[in-house]
């Protein structure tokens, strides 16, 4: 009985969650491969009306228009890169959730590496200094001049 009670909300959540996702985008492309590319592309394109959602997740009018464009381009045999270029030419790189590697945003990709390097240098220095201090301490103890 208690088990059944516990399962019920889970089932409800599963059923309701499924319906909500379906309501936003009921697209079903004829070819499963196209469908997979469609899902991947719409997830990495930003809905500019509601800037933290992808066009796959957004109920905004513009998002559904952009999904229609992606769909039509896929059906017309366009490549993923051609579709991304189409979007970037109109809305700028901001529409891509995954920024491209270019001279302008190289820092975006390189900064984590630089920070990691700084961290390594700092860590190595700290460890070295500590070991020097510890060695000095040991010497002092040996001499009997620790205090």
């Amino acid at each position, binding site marked *: 009985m208690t088990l059944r009670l516990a399962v019920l909300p889970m089932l409800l959540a599963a059923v309701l969650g499924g319906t909500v996702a379906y309501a936003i985008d009921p697209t079903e492309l004829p070819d499963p491969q196209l469908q997979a590319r469609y899902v991947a592309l719409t997830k990495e394109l930003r809905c500019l*009306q509601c800037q933290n959602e992808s066009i796959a997740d957004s109920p905004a009018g513009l998002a559904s*228009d952009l999904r229609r464009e992606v769909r039509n381009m896929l059906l017309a045999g366009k490549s993923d890169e051609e579709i991304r270029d189409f979007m970037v030419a*109109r*809305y*700028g790189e901001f529409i891509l959730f995954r920024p491209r590697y270019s001279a302008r945003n190289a820092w975006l990709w390189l900064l984590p590496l630089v920070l990691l390097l700084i961290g390594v240098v700092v860590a190595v220095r700290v460890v070295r200094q500590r070991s020097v201090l510890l060695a000095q301490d040991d010497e002092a103890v040996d001499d009997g001049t620790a205090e």
Partner: protein
Amino acid sequence: MSRWRLGGRFLIPLLAFALLVVVLANGIRHADRKGTIDSPLVGRPAPEFALPSLTDPNRLVGSQDLQGRWYVLNVWGTWCPGCYQEHETLMEVARSGVVPIVGLNWKDDDAQALAWLAQLGNPYEWIAVDRDGRVAIDWGVYGAPETFLVDDRGIVVHKHTGPLTSQVWKRDFLPLLPQRVTSRSE
């Protein structure tokens, strides 16, 4: 050793502070444009289009009618509160006769759009009806109202996102217009 440590102790926080100042100053400078996205269209040819006219559905309006002259393209819809806000400014610009305004009625209802113009006045030379939003995508429109300035070579010179005010018009649009176009009204 101690000298280096003294320098390091002050240098690193100082550099961190300087960096913070630069980042925050940049944030403050762009605060009024928060959330607006620079259009990649500026400096490039305006997208071509041909759509039915709102006032005369049998007639196609678009790029054909705009060749060789400066114009303002205003993207609007009756569902858009910002468009209501800016309407008076558009009327003023139209009255000044400085530059023609054409409208792109975006994802709207014809009857409602016509009622809106009848009630508030019509600042547009003509209005193209973009029911399914296909042309708006070519123009990179992501939220109405949006206003583009295009020169006589068909190059997009400026884009403003959000309601147009007379202050914005005087600051961002008027100085871009050539003297011989603006002098007519002044």
